[in-house]
């Protein structure tokens, strides 16, 4: 039977090793994310809280080893696996999976899942409680770190959760571990309610994100088509951001699934427009942008409505009306 003093003495000795192990894992995960996202800057956007290894507090270790009513350890020091921990906080449920993919595909560690909120949902469909992904990562071989040798099998707990789940956990951290508080029915009910709401909100965030992605894909396809239609006009330097900005500012009702096809039809029937655009591109910024073609098309179909909805003031788009032969007051 280990004493409190023995436990802490051992832990103090091992702390630098644990810290090294946490750092190695963190570097591996960040490296993996940068390669998946294609850009280190995007990693900082993805992770809502900068990850750093956290060594367990001595008091907390003692409490967990000897005083936690729900846990009984034969060999507490080795059985407690969160002596060092890492936490990754993201915005969306899908982003959790990206980090999991890195954890489950490593050559330097083995992993086991300690907590899986997706599995918990299946096991307790009527319950709304603490949600997080917990992995225990153990080194496959002995590794030499800056502070010495990290033995094979050294554990580290990695938590992955969304910002919303994190907020819930911050609120309930104490209550999760103090049975008496947890048993107060009104508190329990409130906490469950908030997790239910968080789960719904998380789902809605995902829907919103998908809509953004959908719109972005639609816009990207449209812009690619406009650039293609504009391509017979050579030697013209367009500003891609200006096109993106204008495209984004056009109300969505004007852009449908059919728009790309309609544009192709319209410009194959009205080849004169390209000649006209080319001619005016020498002195007009707008006529140098591929999006001018979309303006021609939309004005031809919606001369009145687009005048109001145009992202540009009327005097900027008036020459298009004139080229189309439309008189405007």
């Amino acid at each position: 039977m280990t004493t409190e003093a023995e436990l802490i003495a051992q832990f103090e000795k091992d702390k630098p090793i644990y810290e090294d192990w946490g750092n190695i894992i963190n570097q591996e995960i960040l490296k993996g994310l940068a390669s998946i996202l294609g850009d280190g800057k995007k990693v900082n956007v993805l992770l809502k809280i900068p990850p750093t290894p956290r060594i367990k507090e001595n008091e907390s270790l003692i409490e967990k080893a000897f005083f936690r009513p729900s846990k009984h350890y034969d060999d507490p020091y080795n059985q407690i696996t969160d002596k060092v921990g890492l936490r990754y906080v993201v915005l969306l449920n899908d982003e959790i999976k990206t980090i999991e993919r890195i954890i489950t595909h490593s050559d330097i560690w083995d992993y086991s899942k300690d907590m899986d909120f997706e599995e918990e949902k299946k096991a307790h469909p009527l319950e709304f409680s603490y949600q997080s992904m917990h992995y225990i990562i153990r080194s496959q071989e002995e590794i030499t770190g800056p502070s010495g040798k990290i033995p094979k099998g050294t554990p580290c707990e990695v938590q992955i959760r969304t910002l919303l789940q994190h907020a819930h956990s911050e609120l309930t951290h104490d209550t999760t571990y103090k049975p008496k508080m947890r048993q107060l029915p009104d508190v329990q009910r409130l906490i469950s309610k908030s997790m239910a709401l968080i789960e719904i909100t998380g789902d809605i965030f995902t829907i919103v994100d998908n809509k953004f992605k959908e719109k972005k894909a639609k816009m990207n396809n449209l812009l690619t088509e406009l650039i293609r239609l504009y391509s017979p006009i050579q030697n013209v330097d367009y500003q891609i951001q200006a096109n993106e900005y204008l495209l984004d500012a056009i109300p969505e009702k004007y852009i449908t699934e059919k728009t790309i096809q309609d544009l192709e039809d319209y410009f194959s029937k009205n080849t004169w427009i390209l000649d006209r655009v080319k001619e005016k591109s020498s002195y007009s910024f707008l006529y140098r942008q591929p999006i001018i073609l979309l303006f021609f098309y939309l004005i031809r179909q919606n001369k009145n409505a687009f005048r109001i909805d145009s992202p540009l003031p009327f005097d900027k788009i008036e020459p298009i009306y004139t080229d189309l032969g439309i008189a405007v007051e």
Partner: protein
Amino acid sequence: MCPDVSNMQIEKIILHRVYDNNTDGNITPPKISDNFTTIEPEGLATLQNRIVKSIGEDSHSIQMRVIDNTEGSAYQICKSIIFASDDNEKIRLSAQLAHKLARAQIGRNTPGGILIIISGLIGSNNDRKHFVGIIKAELHDGFNVDENQSILILHLLTSLLLTPQQKFYKIGIFINENSTASSEEVDDNDYSILVYDHLMNRRESNQLARYFFDSFLGCDYSINDKSLTRDFYYRTKDFIDVQNFPEEEKIEFNTSLNSYLRNQQQATVLVADFGNDNFSPEIRDNYSNFMRSVSFPDHAISKDICFLENILKFRRLKFSSDVKIIAPSRNFDQIIHIDGFVDNETRIRIQGNIINDD
């Protein structure tokens, strides 16, 4: 045939000065330019804009027919300008138009101005057509601001022309629609003529416009105006009918259509005018696209309701139960109050008492 004025390409521009009438009735000879004028691309685009504003789709220009095709008529001169291969010949012909305008103004209290004659190509794709445009632009004054001093300084400009103020210019444009035919084969029926003069829109002023389109351009209103006015009425009714409007709105739109055509002051009918006055921008677009799809002209038509007189006098409401209400149009809104529709019932209040039951 509804002329297409998109893709206007102005190639030649020449200006002549025509003076105000002398009080003694003699003509002050116009000042004739002996060459074309040049203009920077932005200026050309502005000129194109002014012309399209006056004769383009949705403008108040009116399509006319040639009534004078004799030697020396505006039609013959414009045709010769289109077919002349020699620049000097074009310049000489344009001067004839200046003299012709000066003569047309005799005896009228008409200000002089600058006569601008342009020629070029118009219309889309392979179907490009030669045109000659004749603009009489009156000079007016305005200011120019000098911002280069420590204080802003206004300079009076006394010979401004072709500002966006449309009442200061009149335009006639002759478009040769038969682009492949030779000069001998082409006749006045091959020409589309659009005339813009702000005076033509109002009943009380449209006679004042006559010297320009008639004495000068040798044109007159189309003989189709009666049937076009009738078509306007029925096509617009068709459009209102197939829309997803609530019934009470349809009745309101029909009332507006009726009053629009019966309006005594208004001398012209224009799809864009009716749309602007009655519909939201989206519906206006649908209406305009619908009228274009049935080839109804997108410029103004000289209003002639003689085919519609009886139709417009009375409104005829027919109900699903075979009940019919016939009411005079002139005060329809005051004597018939439609309060609403509930299930299969219409609540109507009618002013007056029943005086007869046949």
